[in-house]
């Protein structure tokens, strides 16, 4: 990458994840909160998963941003296009590492910034989110972000999940018709 990714919102700083985000992320991946992210998992597996998130940036040029609070600098989650092997396309995903950060609109604020970056700066037409049918909070946020259930893409690679698709302004099927 020629330059480090960096996005800012009113309350948040989003940047490529690094060592500073590791404690919060390993704690998250080891907890029950990671049930929709392949967890909870053992520390070694969590470390491999987190370091692969970091490495994805280098290999693909995009990836999960670490979400940090502007005021305190603490890491509160991640949001961005996750793209492991087996996914036909990058998947817009998000998480908050601790329940204490929920209900404050942080995930929405971070996702809106990431989607703007993907659509306006990077020129993507759309991006999918695979969301577990049991993950009510994420489904609600996807809808609030303007995504809709979508069957136009490749089949969802994750069991128990449905595909939601976010469209760039003017790029939804209706807008293009």
């Amino acid at each position, binding site marked *: 990458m020629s330059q480090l990714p960096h996005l800012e919102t009113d309350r948040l700083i989003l940047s*490529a*994840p*690094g*060592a500073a985000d*590791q404690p919060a992320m390993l704690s998250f991946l080891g907890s029950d909160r990671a049930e929709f992210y392949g967890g909870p998992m053992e*520390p*070694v597996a969590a*470390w*491999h*998963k*987190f*370091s*692969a*998130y*970091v*490495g*994805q*940036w*280098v*290999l*693909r040029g995009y990836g999960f941003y670490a979400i940090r609070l502007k005021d305190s600098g603490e890491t509160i989650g991640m949001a961005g296009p996750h793209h*492991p*092997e*087996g996914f036909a396309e990058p998947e817009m995903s998000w998480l908050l590492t601790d329940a204490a950060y929920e209900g404050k609109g942080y995930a929405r604020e971070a996702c809106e910034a990431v989607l703007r970056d993907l659509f306006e700066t990077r020129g993507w037409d759309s991006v999918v989110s695979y969301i577990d049918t049991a993950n009510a909070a994420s489904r609600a946020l996807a809808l609030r972000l303007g995504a809709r259930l979508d069957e136009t893409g490749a089949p969802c690679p994750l069991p128990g999940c449905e595909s939601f698709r976010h469209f760039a302004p003017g790029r939804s099927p209706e807008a293009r018709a």
Partner: protein
Amino acid sequence: MPAPLLHTPRLTLRGHVMADFEQLCDLFETDRARYMGGKLPRKEAWRWLASEVGMWDLIGLGSWGIEDKDGSFLGQIGLLHPPHYPETEIGWTLLEQAEGKGYAAEAAAAVLLWAWGQGIETLVSYIDRENSRSIALAERLGAVLDPDAALPPDEAPEETLVYRHRPDSDGSPEAYT
């Protein structure tokens, strides 16, 4: 940090790129993966490679892609220290067509020299007892068997030998030039 660029008379060692992934996946699907923990499905290979790439940002160590001066990918070499390893390992893997030409020795010498320059005081190589090629290379590099070294928890002494590298084990840095 990105992987540092290293040059030898015939090789360039550089950070991994996506094209490496396809060739490493092909390698891991063959019987040649037997000394690397067995055949590795593509999804796991992705996490493995992305993790080794991400390590550069997290711990300042990781793996390099090895290519010749024409830019052909020949294999991989890395300085690896995931959290379950008792110490840092230098490990290497070549594509079949790149073997027998001294490439692994040339790449390893450059990586050892870089490591000693970073102030690393010792490295190990975990090598399958039946992997005579890697054993020969470790010995050629001046490494010596260390029967007292701790093993990672997923390695067993009946299967895995520990070779220890030290800056003075095969003389001065001039030995690598």
